[in-house]
């Protein structure tokens, strides 16, 4: 059951990414290019996604627990540390170079080009080495 819910969530999420334009790196870079020929349309993706989630979460949190688990497992970290900021800086550089963040990168695998395979393999390599470096 739990496995199925993750599958369903992945399907809805990915449809949103593809329809919204987030899987088009040129469009993403056009959105980030605020000093050039700025394409602000992707701001609407984040805007509607945040507002929808904000309202939806409030409704979900009215129940005592989620459907398939014993309780909500929300992130517990509160403080803003160097690790958070350095991570965000590195991610921002990679996103600015490629126009790809993790979700759209995974969805873009269906484009079937060598470039996206190389990017995703490198991304997983990054996922893999961080816990090895920081014990």
């Amino acid at each position, binding site marked *: 059951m*739990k496995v199925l*819910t*993750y599958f369903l*969530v*992945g*399907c*809805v*999420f*990915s449809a*949103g*990414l*593809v329809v*919204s334009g*987030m*899987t*088009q790196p*040129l469009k993403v*870079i056009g959105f980030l*290019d*605020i000093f*050039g020929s700025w394409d602000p*349309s992707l701001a609407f*993706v*984040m*805007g*509607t996604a945040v*507002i*929808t*989630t904000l309202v939806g*979460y409030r*409704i979900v949190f009215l129940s005592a*627990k989620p459907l398939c688990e014993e*309780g909500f497992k*929300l*992130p517990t970290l509160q403080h*803003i540390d160097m690790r*958070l900021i350095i991570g*965000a*800086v*590195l*991610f*921002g*550089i*990679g*996103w*600015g*170079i490629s126009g790809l963040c*993790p*979700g759209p990168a*995974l969805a873009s*695998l269906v*484009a079937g080009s060598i*470039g*996206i395979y*190389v*990017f995703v393999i490198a991304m997983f390599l*990054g996922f*893999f*080495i*961080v816990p090895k470096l920081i014990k």
Partner: protein
Amino acid sequence: MNSAYVLASIGGLLIGLSAILLMYFNGKVLGVSGIASNLVSSTPSSKMCSASFVIGILLSAAIVKQINPAWVPGALDIGLPLLFIAGIFVGVGTRLGNGCTSGHGVCGIARLSKRSLSATMTFMLVAICTVYIINIFSGALA
């Protein structure tokens, strides 16, 4: 109204809906870097769920792509070494910072988390500067 804005809003709505569903079913924040990195982590956790999430992403992208193949063009033609470096930066950065555009940018901000707001402002600002610097260099070369 410009169709790019309509599509962006429909897409954002679906992304929000998926985040709500994961919270409703499993009580978790939808963070792609977190769920995907679980596949290569050594912690004993449900890899089946992460795998099925990724399979859902792939299957759905393959289907929705049929509407307009230009929606999923793949990576930019910037050379494999640069794509590899960018991939490493995205992988390392999102793991260090405990989140990406979905976990921090959508779910975290929707939870009004200060950490997520700081992370999102940081990676947006750095990405904007990165694009700006690349444009200066490519303009100088052209």
